């Protein structure tokens, strides 16, 4: 089993879970010093494959060869020792410890009377400079931003002499600019002999960074090869299983009546006197780097955080800024929050209960909830939004990301909305679900709803917005229209230019 240049080979991997065949005789092979993209929709089997590779699950069938040697991992620690490190989306760092302590956590060379902090920091500094990572070894992790924390995770993996590093959607929660930096560091790692498996839903990125690509769908290997054998259309059709003619369908008509208008909106510490309007039928994009205040704008309009404004008009009527979400709901203002797991859903509750949660008043009499009507409402929305769930009483945590996001949307659609704020509407969901979300946005806009779309994904901002408001450090830097909406202009304004 010795193929020159092949660092990792997984052969005929099959894994069954109760009721699902998660992986069906999947082959995966990657070369030394390559960045290999693993793509597929949610539920395609990517996570399962990675969990098998990293020793979390054992395969029912199949073999793994690392550097020509047959390996069978009994647990994740075993896999790490053999040189396979996974960097999950949810980072695993101790916030209160320094970068150096995190990198060498559990591997400290120390006696109980001597913590050897100084040596640790020196070692870490050396490692970080070798990797070209711009972070200080003595800094506490809690003072770093998400992308810097990712670098700590990578350094941690490198400290264990990782041969293969798996990065699970590293760009999902960082900005475009930070992603660019990450990519150049990844290329640096490659030159130092590391092989990287890169998981991402953003196909643009796959073409930018990957040398090879493997596509999974429904637990099966669909295709694999050098990146230059693919173009965007082939990759999409391999991932989705059908051709999608248009990734960003845009078919809304803007009217000239204002749906919402605000003057000098301020959120202390985040947003400084922002004024804008959104017309009925319009999609207003709000872009900017992480921390520019765009997330706070979403919450402020909805009454999710304390804010004030000189003047606000909803549907032509003067309104005070809402102080609580229920006030907004009553007025027909909805928020699709940016983080569906922490803000959008109660994962332990069923699909129906999640959908009913903000809408109990429609099915309640004297405090008694008529669940039969609740199930009718949720059943209709599940059908309308094509939410894939075995039953209405399935817990939200068991759905895939795209379907979870649709449940969040469904929560809002029970009422007749006037203004909807979509915050990061397609973060971490697959191509097919993305297109469905965009279509829903169009549909709502054409019903006369004003739509504010706050997003860190430039392609969707560029393609879906009628106008784009760009923020930088809490203030408005630009409002772009028509021809002027392009990635360059947005980035320039977002960087403060």
């Amino acid at each position: 089993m010795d193929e020159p240049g092949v660092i990792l080979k997984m052969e005929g991997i099959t894994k069954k879970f109760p009721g699902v065949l998660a992986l069906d005789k999947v082959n995966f092979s990657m070369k030394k010093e390559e960045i290999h993209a693993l793509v597929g929709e949610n539920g395609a089997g990517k996570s399962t494959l990675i969990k098998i590779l990293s020793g979390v699950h054992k395969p029912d069938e199949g073999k793994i060869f690392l550097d020509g040697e047959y390996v069978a991992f009994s647990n994740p620690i075993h896999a790490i020792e053999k040189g396979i490190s996974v960097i999950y989306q949810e980072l695993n760092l101790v916030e209160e410890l320094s970068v150096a302590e995190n990198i060498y956590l559990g591997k400290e060379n120390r006696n109980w009377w001597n913590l050897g902090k100084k040596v640790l920091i020196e070692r870490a500094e050396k490692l970080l400079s070798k990797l070209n990572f711009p972070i200080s070894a003595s800094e506490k992790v809690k003072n770093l931003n998400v992308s810097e924390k990712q670098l700590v995770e990578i350094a941690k993996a490198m400290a264990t002499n990782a041969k293969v590093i798996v990065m699970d959607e590293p760009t999902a929660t960082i900005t475009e600019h930070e992603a660019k930096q990450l990519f150049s560091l990844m290329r640096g790692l490659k030159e130092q002999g590391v092989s990287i498996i890169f998981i991402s839903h953003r196909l643009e990125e796959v073409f930018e960074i990957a040398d090879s690509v493997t596509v999974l769908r429904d637990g099966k290997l669909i295709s694999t090869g050098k990146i230059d054998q693919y173009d965007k259309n082939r990759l999409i059709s391999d991932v989705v299983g059908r051709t999608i003619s248009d990734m960003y369908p845009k078919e809304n008509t803007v009217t000239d009546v204002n749906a919402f208008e605000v003057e000098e909106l301020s959120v202390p510490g985040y947003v400084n006197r922002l004024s804008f309007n959104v017309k009925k039928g319009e999609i207003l994009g709000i872009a900017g780097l992480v921390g520019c205040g765009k997330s706070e704008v979403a919450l402020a309009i909805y009454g999710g955080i304390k804010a004030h404004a000189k003047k606000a008009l909803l549907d032509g009527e003067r309104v005070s800024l809402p102080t609580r979400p229920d006030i907004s709901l009553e007025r027909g203002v909805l928020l699709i929050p940016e983080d569906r797991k922490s803000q959008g859903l109660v994962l332990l509750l069923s699909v129906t209960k999640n959908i009913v949660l903000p809408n109990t008043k429609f099915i309640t009499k004297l405090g008694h909830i008529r669940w039969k009507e609740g199930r009718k409402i949720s059943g209709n929305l599940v059908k309308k939004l094509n939410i894939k769930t075995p039953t209405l009483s399935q817990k939200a945590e068991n759905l895939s990301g795209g379907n979870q996001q649709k449940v969040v949307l469904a929560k809002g659609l029970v009422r007749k909305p006037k203004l909807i704020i979509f915050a990061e509407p397609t973060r971490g969901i697959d191509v097919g679900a993305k297109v469905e979300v965009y279509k829903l946005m169009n549909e709502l806009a054409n019903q006369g709803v004003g739509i504010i779309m706050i997003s860190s994904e430039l392609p969707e901002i560029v393609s879906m917005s009628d106008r784009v408001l760009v923020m930088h450090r809490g203030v408005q830097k630009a409002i772009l229209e028509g021809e002027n909406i392009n990635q360059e202009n947005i980035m320039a304004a977002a960087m403060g230019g």
Partner: protein
Amino acid sequence: MLKKFLNLLRKFPIILGFIGVVVLFSILTNRFFTLSNFLNVFRQISINAIIAFGMTFVILSGGIDLSVGSVFALAAVVGASIIKGGNVFLGSLAALGVGAAMGAFNGAIIAKLKLQPFIVTLATMAIARSFTQVYTQGRPITGLPSTFREIGRGELFSVPVPIYIMFAVFFISLYILSNTKLGLYTYSIGGNEEATRLSGIKVIRYKVTIYTISGLLSALSALILTARLNSAQPIFGTGYELDAIAAVVLGGTSLSGGKGTIIGTLFGAMVMGVINNGMNLVNVSPFYQQAVKGAVILLAVMAERSE
């Protein structure tokens, strides 16, 4: 039929535990499996079960209420002092009022100031106990009217009154948790408070309600014990918070909130009660009894974990 039963067992493994302890003590002693002993066990259980039902609301919402034992004592002595003066109705109402007020106070501080329920209720646990001592000067209040004593000692169709009260509270709680807004929000606040708030639910108001229920139910339980013993004592309720929490956890409710059932709590309280009663019947030394209870809780939690 059998399949339904097996499904029930899978959902509530504590029922299996209950059957287990019942069978065990039935084998060990012939004094256990008798109607009169069962009525006795249930009467004893009612005190803990009623507190534990309130505790279930609190824990489901992601909180904890350590003050229930002290609130129990304060409600008992305030109620008893008025009842002793002759006004049973007013006294009972005062006791319930004290319990509800203490609970509301807990809830308001926890929800409004966003403080840890553990710390807040630890503080009110000390405060309520202190109030109790001051109010009674450390002396028990005894000699209560017979009409009042019926709550604890009376029987209806040969079944002790506390058992009726316990089941009434059980069914009301069951109804609230599965069929009302309050119930839905209790689960959703415990499952994800931020998502609940952003869904337009007035989380503060519901949290206050939830802790009020807990305080109210410990006061109700206190009335039963006071009536049964014909006395309210300032040391009442010491350690009751632990028994209540144990019953809730034994019943499969997650301490991190959002997951659990009131049926589980009922069986959790029954298992604890049967073990107490059974150990007395087979003459296990009281010195060992706490250890056995502790071991049972550990076993239950481990069994749940391994699923």
